[in-house]
């Protein structure tokens, strides 16, 4: 029996439970309905998991994840619902199912109860990897980089591309000389700390603040008011724009964060272009471990890994724990929630405007 046939069997059982749950719910047997929805969720999740690594089985894979996520939402298991919806997006869903999964994520977010005022949880900040990342993640991550700059190539783990931001980046920056600046700097550029390397042909405008350790390649442009907070690797030909802040970031050659951007704990692939005001947010409000789907990354701070050529529109906000496949374009104003997004796609934003005459 193939995985698809096994998944089909589990799905039929799940839907039988779901149908009975609907009837029980509308006949006022709420407790029984809840139990039946939970049973349906268990079976449907098991069906979807059977196809986790089988992106060739689309649309079955994403339909099952969408169905399971909807059942989890029905069961008010918001965390599970979100995780399942993200797993669904991690495959290769048809455009309609992808759109429904994104809508479902919005619905889950809107349905989550808010944390009560006054609650507080102590947060331990750590860069250490807590647990190994599931190897199966490599199978669902989209293609990201055509080539890796030499210092990163040997250490790259396709199942955990964000790991470059940890020990690998630390080791590269720790080996830098105290200062090696191959350009003439304006006296109005503020250089702080040790481990500063700036390549030939790079232009740094007055008013920029650069804290070490930082490695800046050749022909980079760093504009007025840019703030490099340390732990930075910037490849040849990149642009760091006016009032842009970088903190522990890797910019592969030609990447641009050109206008009013925040790039925290992120990797920008070659030729990435961030629209004005795009924010790569790196920290959860509850201080918890950043996860990609259901899998931990071992990092308390992590925003995005954007594949080569990704473009964001103005005022996008990328939430902690996002991977975007190469060449994908993101509409202006999108709130990109944690998850894995496919390559060569367009992530659209739907909105409705009511335009009414003035009284």
């Amino acid at each position, binding site marked *: 029996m193939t995985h698809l046939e096994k998944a089909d069997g589990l799905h039929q059982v799940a839907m039988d439970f*779901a*149908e009975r749950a609907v009837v029980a719910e509308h006949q006022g047997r709420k407790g029984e309905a809840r139990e039946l929805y939970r049973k349906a969720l268990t079976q449907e999740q098991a069906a979807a998991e059977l196809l986790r690594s089988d992106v060739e089985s689309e649309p079955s894979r994403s339909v099952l994840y969408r169905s399971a996520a909807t059942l989890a939402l029905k069961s008010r298991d918001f965390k599970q619902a979100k995780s399942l919806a993200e797993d669904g997006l991690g495959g290769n869903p048809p455009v309609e199912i992808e759109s429904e999964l994104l809508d479902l994520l919005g619905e889950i977010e809107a349905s989550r109860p808010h944390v009560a005022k006054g609650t507080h949880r102590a947060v331990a900040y750590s860069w250490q990897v807590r647990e190994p990342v599931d190897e199966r993640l490599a199978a669902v991550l989209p293609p990201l980089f055509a080539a890796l700059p030499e210092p990163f190539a040997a250490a790259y783990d396709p199942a955990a591309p964000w790991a470059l931001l940890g020990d690998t980046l630390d080791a590269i920056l720790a080996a830098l000389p105290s200062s090696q600046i191959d350009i003439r700097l304006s006296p109005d550029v503020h250089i702080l700390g040790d481990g500063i390397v700036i390549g030939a042909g790079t232009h740094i405008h007055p008013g920029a603040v650069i804290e070490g350790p930082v490695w800046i390649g050749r022909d980079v442009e760093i504009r007025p008011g840019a703030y490099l907070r340390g732990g930075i690797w910037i490849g040849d030909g990149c642009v760091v724009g006016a009032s842009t802040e970088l903190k522990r970031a890797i910019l592969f050659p030609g990447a641009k964060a050109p206008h009013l951007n925040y790039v925290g704990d992120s990797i920008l692939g070659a030729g990435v272009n961030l629209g004005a005001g795009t924010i790569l947010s790196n920290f959860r409000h509850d201080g918890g471990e950043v996860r990609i789907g259901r899998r931990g990354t071992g990092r308390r701070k992590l925003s995005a890994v954007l594949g080569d050529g990704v473009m964001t529109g103005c005022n996008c906000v990328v939430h902690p724990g996002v991977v975007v496949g190469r060449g994908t374009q993101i509409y202006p104003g999108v709130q990109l929630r944690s998850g894995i997004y496919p390559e060569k796609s367009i992530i659209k934003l739907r909105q409705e405007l009511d335009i009414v005459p003035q009284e």
Partner: protein
Amino acid sequence: MDSNEHPSLFLARLLEAAPCLTPIFRSFLVEAASVCFDEQGHQNGVGLKVEGHFVRAYALFWEPVGEAARRSHGDAEVATEYGAYGLAILLIKALTGMTVVQRSFKGTGFDFWLGDANDPGFQRKARLEVSGIRHGSTAQVKARLELKKRQIGNTPHALPGYVAVVEFGQPLTLIVRL
């Protein structure tokens, strides 16, 4: 509409159109649809118009609705949604010969999949998306259809299928093929 010359459509024959559904759920759909027609004051044999990709008319028949069924389907919104499922599934069988062989959970209910029951998964299947209106104008039905089409995306359609909007007041069903 004079329905005497139209072919008959029996709600009770949902089993033939959706063999994969559980008996309890099929009864639930039939009962919900019956309550919707009854509540709109229709009598057995009422003429049902189908427009859009198909242009047909049917004479519709259902079992008498008791007080218990009316009470059970007191939530008009829910009854309309599930009644619409039942009628749309029957119509698709009558219009295309295709039966519902899969269903998946979506939104507040289900979407349905048409095709070969021996073919596992959702490949090579057509999707049936259904929406219901208890009482509305033709313009409202068309507007709902456009909304539904926008929701599931206009182009390109990797998933073939049908969108059906069922209105119980006239009664009218609009069906488009994607």
